[in-house]
């Protein structure tokens, strides 16, 4: 089982959390061009390596946080940063 280090609850089984996908800063909807908005909605880097991503600690503190994980080896890089689902560290 993948152990996800929640900044509030410590290491938790990945089944206790919900995966939020890649962490990208959300463009301002008032000023973003349609192309920027579509890129934010759909396009992904999907690297085979270090990736900053969002997790929701559904069975624990019920907070979103962002963390870097290596998608090839499943290692986490410390420390996790508290954040929100709209992307990036808070």
């Amino acid at each position, binding site marked *: *089982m*993948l152990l996800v280090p929640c900044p509030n609850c410590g290491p938790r089984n*990945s*089944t206790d959390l*919900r*995966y939020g*996908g*890649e962490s990208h800063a959300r463009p301002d909807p008032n000023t973003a061009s349609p*192309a920027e908005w*579509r*890129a934010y*909605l*759909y*396009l*992904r*880097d*999907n*690297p*085979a390596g270090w*990736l900053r*991503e969002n997790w929701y600690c559904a069975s624990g503190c019920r907070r979103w946080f962002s963390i870097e994980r290596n*998608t*090839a*080896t*499943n290692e986490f890089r410390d420390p996790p940063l508290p954040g929100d689902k709209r992307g990036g560290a808070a």
Partner: protein
Amino acid sequence: MAGLAGRLRKRPPKYSAAALAWKGLRGQSWPRVWRDCDLQRSYDAVVIGGGVHGLATAYYLARNHGMTNVAVLDKAYLGSGGSGRNTAIVRSNYLTPEGVAFYDRSVHLYEQMAVELNINVMFSQRGHLTLAHSDSSLRTMHWRAEVNKLGGVNSSVIGPDEIKKECPSLDTSDHPRYPIQGALYHPPGGVVRHDAVVWGYARAADHMGVEMHQKTEVTDILCEGGDGPDGKGAGGRVTGVRTNRGDISTPIVINCTAGWASLISTMAGVRLPITTHPLQAAVTEPVKMFLPTVVVSGSLHVYVSQTDRGELVFGASVDPYANYSVRGSLEFTEGLAGHVLELMPGVSRMRILRQWSGLCDMTPDYSPVMGFTPVDGFLVDVGWGTYGFKAAPVSGEQMAEAAATGRTPKLIEAFALSRFDNGELVGEKGAASVGH
């Protein structure tokens, strides 16, 4: 007489019973089926990925369009990725009219394949049951059945009694936690021997002059004129590929990879709407035949079929987080066993022999991304998610047409990368075998 002679020339009886006896008695070994070639400096087209999609594309480029100066590059061996890791199910009972027409063509090509490629692909059209355990899933089954009928696909909703008749080992009582309320029954669905499909396409493409290069890893795609660094990106043009065995110049590069689709496309400066998730599968010890159809339950996240050898082959939903590792996990096996036992309590004493996983490129709408990209000469046949194997023949046929003619064939217009710019998504999640 001339017709008979023509047929004999077209399909040399290399693998007949007589040839088997002759070679067996004389102790002869069989010749290698495809050549090992030196890498040329230039090709008319380069296909990246030597799985069923890449090989089918190369085969149809040669057969339908006369393009034989084609190289298929694979960083490992032919069929080493999803082509050898899928659960070999073929069906066309999809949800969208675009999907139904597309996959129906694929089933049609699978039906002809054994004769066309002269290899026993063991296509067993044993019927395909998609179980519904709730009112809402039963509603989706009715919806799919109606779309299927309009597309000319044999598909209908049946009740628990008929399910029991088709598949007596299923628990159709009201005892389980999620009782079976009905099913979408799709008689033409079935299973194919997936390795034979790889070998058949590889052999046929090789006969026509296509070169397959194994252990040849693409490290970069060479472009010019694009708006990104090194001439990559939108508005540019492909000039060649860089591999671990040297550079190749080519005007056409077709990305037929699964799992590495994003990484290969990034080499040409094209970002894709794809995240890569592993999908795990498992197989049990062999027993006597008792499961006549393919059984799928979206609510219980499981699909199962029995091979001709008698093993049960299971698959489940993709892992919940993006990942490039193909390691199995215990929670998958535990969850799978629980779900299978709820469907078929009778298999509780069977043991799982092994489990494996393959990489699935998931798109936001569960439909593939096919055709041209903003980089001229760079085509993609990616984002297959969990549908890749069943679509291999038709994808090869359509991608070959796109690459050879420079126009997008009608059958795959709906799957273009530009659909994400235009907001014309082809939502196929409702036809997924399992929840995601």
